[in-house]
């Protein structure tokens, strides 16, 4: 028991360390901003006085390390400072901008994950069970196609088919704070469908590959020689040993749902956090960019940590040392 706790603790410490390094990277990359970005934010016709006031406002007159720790301390509390779009008298806190967006993205991600993950793993298991059959070959070609095409292609095709030609769903996904469950689902149907198609393909292929990889092991041959049925071989011999890579790919795709769904958000004009990041990049709204980047990093590191822990948990050599 002692050994696993040490390993878990090590992994956790590594995750926190990585997060810190990433925060430094995020912060310092923005410190590389070319000098006249103040003008880019305020507009070309800004007077020198306004520029200096602005720079004071965002604290560029203080040393970098001091600014970093301030920012980090604030971030831990949940306060990411003010957006560059705020003006004296009309302050806009970063948290207020990002908060609702994050909630929206999480809703979309949650709905998609609930459908896509179980579906992908089951389909992957079936494909591994019936490998090289017609079912497998068709699925292989279909998923290969889906992961090759850009997401906006899938999105627009679905819109064309399901919102324009045959008006089943809405093509714009608006979200209001007090929407009921049914209305939410109706509005989000198309983006959820698009995202599901995009991530199912990847997870399915990896599940199939992981299981087939394990099926080549000597103990699977032994199971065949013991007369174990193909279904039991996949479920009781292969799957337990394939959990680690499957968990890894699920974590990756979960992270994608939160972080990489920005294209989908733009296509469906869905107010998510990906869109917030893109807008902030375009307007050089540094505090928002930093906050979004940090949140994304946190998500990614956290999900990878879970996948790592699952890999450790399913490895008997680590769980029960000699």
């Amino acid at each position, binding site marked *: 028991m002692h050994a696993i706790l040490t390993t878990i603790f090590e992994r956790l410490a590594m995750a926190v360390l990585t997060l810190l390094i990433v925060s430094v990277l995020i912060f310092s990359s923005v410190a590389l901003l070319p000098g006249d970005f103040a003008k880019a934010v305020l507009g070309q016709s800004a007077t020198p006085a306004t520029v200096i006031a602005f720079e004071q406002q965002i604290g560029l007159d203080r040393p970098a390390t001091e600014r970093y720790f301030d920012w980090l301390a604030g971030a831990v509390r949940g306060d990411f400072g003010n957006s560059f779009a705020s003006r004296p008298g009309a302050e806009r806190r970063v948290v207020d901008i990002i908060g609702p967006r994050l909630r929206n993205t999480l809703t979309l991600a949650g709905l998609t994950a609930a459908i896509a993950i179980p579906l992908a793993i089951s389909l992957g298991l079936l494909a591994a069970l019936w490998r090289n059959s017609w079912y497998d070959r068709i699925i292989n070609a279909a998923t290969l196609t889906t992961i090759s095409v850009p997401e906006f292609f899938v999105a627009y095709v679905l819109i064309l088919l399901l919102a324009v030609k045959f008006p089943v769903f809405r093509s714009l996904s608006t979200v209001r704070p007090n929407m009921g469950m049914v209305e939410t689902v109706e509005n989000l149907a198309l983006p959820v469908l698009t995202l599901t198609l995009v991530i199912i393909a990847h997870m399915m292929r990896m599940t199939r590959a992981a299981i087939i990889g394990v099926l080549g092991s000597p103990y699977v041959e032994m199971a*065949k020689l013991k007369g174990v049925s193909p279904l039991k071989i996949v479920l009781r011999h292969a799957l337990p040993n394939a959990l680690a890579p499957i968990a890894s790919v699920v974590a990756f795709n979960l992270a994608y749902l939160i972080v990489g769904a920005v294209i989908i958000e733009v296509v469906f004009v869905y107010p998510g956090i990906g869109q917030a990041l893109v807008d902030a990049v375009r307007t050089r709204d540094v505090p928002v960019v930093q906050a979004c980047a940090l949140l994304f990093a946190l998500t990614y590191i956290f999900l990878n940590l879970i996948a790592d822990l699952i890999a450790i948990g399913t490895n*008997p*050599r680590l769980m029960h040392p000699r």
Partner: protein
Amino acid sequence: MIIDPKAQEVLLNIIDLQIEAEADDGWHPIVNGLSLTLRRGEVLGLIGESGAGKSTIGLASMGFTRPGCRIAGGQVIFNGSDLLKLPKRQLRSFRGTRIAYVAQSAAMAFNPARRILDQTVETAVNDMARPRKEANANALDLFRELQLPDVEQLAHRYPHQVSGGQLQRAMTAMAMSCRPELIIFDEPTTALDVTTQVEVLAAIRKVVAEHNTAAIYITHDLAVVSQMADRVMVLRHGKEVEQAPTREMLSSPRDAYTKSLWSVRQMHKPAEPRQDVVLEIRNIDATYGRGAIKVLDNVSVSVPRGRTLAIVGESGSGKSTLARVVTGLLGPSAGNILFNGVALPPVLKSRTSEQLRQIQLVYQSADTALNPRQRVRDLVGRRLELYFGMAGREKERRVGELLDMVELGSRYVDRFPGELSGGQKQRISLARALAAKPELMICDEITSALDQIVQGEILKLLTRLQRATNVTYMFITHDIATVKTISDEVVVMNRGKVVQQGPKDSVLSPPYPDYTERLLRSVPEIDPDWLNRLLAARQ
């Protein structure tokens, strides 16, 4: 073991079996019209070199082929049904319950993610619908019969927590759990140490005899097959060479090939006395894991020039570690080494090019020792470039000479290792080492991964090379027969310590220190009563 073979009915009848394997250019036959008969309770030994098809035939007796192989013809009649014509579901029901298989490596055959007991009773519970409690109790009984220690504890362990010999016996229990009529043992002790092997052989023989199970015992080791089988069949290139009851086969083999298999064990080289010392290993300690595990403990060995020093021991004895210390791959934590009277820098990085040249290491498995993407010309020629600055035609000529020395010839110059056989690859390894004109060659189990006949050939080659170049060999091995064949002096190691060293004749004759005695006694002899005598002596 049975008394009157004719009284028992025929259990397995293989008629004209043909099996093909797939290569890039189509299907090639690997088993060519093999027939055999096995009666209830009888143990048949299948013996032959690798590539002879023994494993393939063993698996085919269950109606199974590995990916890349297919059964092209013939019949496998088990208790009246032709396994090759049965529908898949029925064939599956035979496996594990009526015919069982014991693999070569138990560590690989057990699922690492499930407990031992769980896997052992899997077939009994699923296919024979025995209640789990009964099956578990049954399995524990089998573990006890096979003389496993602490059966309750062991059953609930995971495979990696248990030693190789114990796991092999657990696998035998797994095979026996449904009381099958036939068990196929596929080289079950090949991967085990000699001293562990004895226990497993005794256990298998006992359990097979008590339950009157028929068995096919596959091995390449003549001494082992003579302990286990009633009848022996010799295979070559997928065909039967000869077949006879064990004692008859051993006392009067008829075919020339069979006789050549036997002759390997009879080679002996008279030991030559030493002249001067080329390498002096003094009080070496070595550790792994930042000083946690001591793998060498105060080891001192003196290596005579121009002679062969055999270092013999089982796995974990430290013999390979000693080689790594001498070559500089592992730095010792204490002690020093003198080469030609001069202190050798402990670590590779601090040695001169000349020092690197003079000591060469040849590996056990030529599969991993030769870069598969380099041709023979580059593999052998690189040392000529590095140490002697040779290039162009001069290098080409010298490479040809070296290939002649190892009895291959310059037509192999353009080949890749993948196109060579095991023995040929090992010769290339030797040529590569010789290219450096070394004074000392460390041979780390270089014949252990080869067939017996090829082993003999390589050993003869080594002797010829030594006579021609006066090179010194440090020959590391676990095989006593090889030691008898090739060495002038012997060092026996156990658990990182030197147990005994001296000229061959004095080490290999009594009186022995305890470990040496145990080691020598555990080596199977080509005598059907050897195991019986050993077990009797133990009581």
